[in-house]
């Protein structure tokens, strides 16, 4: 290869690299998860990350993939959907016989759910957000046997609203999207008022 050809080769190479880079940036902007650049799903106004409980399969990554420790995703409780069950499948491990608050009987790995007696046979379950790691174990139990009133949500006072949410990037069910800051929760039921 003579000098002239080598120069041409480098120039062509640079052009291709620039072109490829621009295509990547454009593709990312147009197809990026949650916030499309064009189309009817394009929203105006500031947005934040949120997960759709109807799509979530409780894979555990909300606990392990968040850049915050503990995760900015927490269990939330849509009280209007709750049965206030004595045998709460979100609170007790599946085979539990005696229904007391012994740590070994609790499903939650960090005992973040508090059980309070209301009246026979009803109990109220509240989440201690400071303890909750967003693992979704209780959400799975409640959804499988109960009414599904326990649901995971990104808690915005804790979330850094990362440009590229590391949970959204790895969520196997595509549950994450960007939602309007003015309506930032996607709880099922009528539980938004409980947050």
């Amino acid at each position, binding site marked *: 290869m003579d000098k002239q050809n080598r120069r041409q080769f480098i120039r062509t190479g640079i052009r291709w690299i620039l072109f490829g880079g621009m295509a990547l940036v454009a593709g990312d902007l147009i197809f990026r998860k949650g916030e499309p650049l064009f189309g009817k799903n394009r929203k105006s106004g500031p947005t934040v990350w949120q997960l759709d409980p109807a799509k979530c399969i*409780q*894979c*555990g*990554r909300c*606990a*392990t993939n968040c850049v915050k420790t503990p995760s900015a995703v927490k269990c939330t409780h849509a009280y209007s959907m*709750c*049965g*206030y*069950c*004595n*045998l*709460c*499948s979100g609170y007790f491990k*599946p*085979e539990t*016989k005696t229904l007391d608050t012994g740590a070994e009987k609790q*499903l939650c*790995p960090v005992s973040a759910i508090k059980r309070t007696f209301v009246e026979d*046979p009803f109990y109220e379950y509240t989440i201690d957000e400071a303890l909750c790691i967003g*693992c*979704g*174990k209780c959400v*799975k*139990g409640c959804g*499988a*046997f*109960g*009414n599904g009133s326990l649901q995971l949500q990104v808690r915005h006072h804790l979330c850094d609203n990362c440009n590229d949410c590391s949970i959204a990037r*790895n969520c196997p069910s595509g549950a994450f999207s960007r939602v309007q800051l003015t309506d930032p929760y996607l709880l099922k039921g009528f539980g938004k008022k409980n947050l």
Partner: protein
Amino acid sequence: MKKKTILIFAIMLFLVFVAWMLRDLFMVRPELQKNPYDYGMTALRKTDTVPSYTELSPLKPVLREITSVAGNQDGKIYIAGKGGVEILDVSGRMLKHFPIRGYATCLTLMPDGTLVIGMEDHVELWSPSGNIISVWQAVDTNSMITSVAATQNLIFVADAGKKIVYQYDRYGKLQARIGEKDPVRKIPGFIIPSPYFDVGISPKGELWVANTGRYRLEKYSMDGSLLTSWGEASMAMEGFAGCCNPSNFTILPDGSFVTSEKGIERVKVYSPDGAFVALVAGPEAFDEGTRGLDLAAGSNGRILVLDPSRNQIRVFVPDKRN
């Protein structure tokens, strides 16, 4: 020579870098896939008990979003759901289909063949030929009718919204409210955490109700006194797997109970006094998360299971060996 070596080394380094990037982008790494907080549903849905029933080919109704099934001893199968009722013969051939307005949540047959259809908040009576006989007034505000049962002259309506079983005459006149909490009569009241609240009449004419928040079946007198109950919460085959089970039940001609559960989907037979007898179908037979397995006694010992997930009527017959 030296230049060539450096070039080859650089290309190899570049290829290794590209391979690493591709692996990072596209390869699924099992250690990242494993859920350290797994609930263990897969293990719970496995059972050692062998079913004592064999499944025949399922019946596939034309109706979509089916919710309830009833059978009678001449082999006819009645199915209700969104916007219609379908009547099939024993082989699944459609005999009749007629539209209804709205969403049928439950249905039963009166001994004279009249169809009693629960429609979320009210009841309708239809003739088997598809003519409407009467439309009752809405039961109550916030009512959610989940089951109906009938004797010759009485119709029982389970209302999960109000947590009461209403007793009507066949003209829609309210006769009694059954299961209302009453400490004087020692009636603890129904605990119905979710919209699964089934009611049935035994061949002896006894009224049975699934008190799902207490994981048991309760027998009531016609005036609403609690007579007896059986059942307990347990993941074991003999029990009902937690809240809110049994989600559905039916009573066979010999007085045995067939129950279905949600969470761990299973259909089982219990003796008339509530002892576990046999597994009809275990969780493996159903899609995970299936709820509302309505049940009916078919002809010749068949058990009909409405599978809302597959929109089919699954048919189970006792194993010859058993």
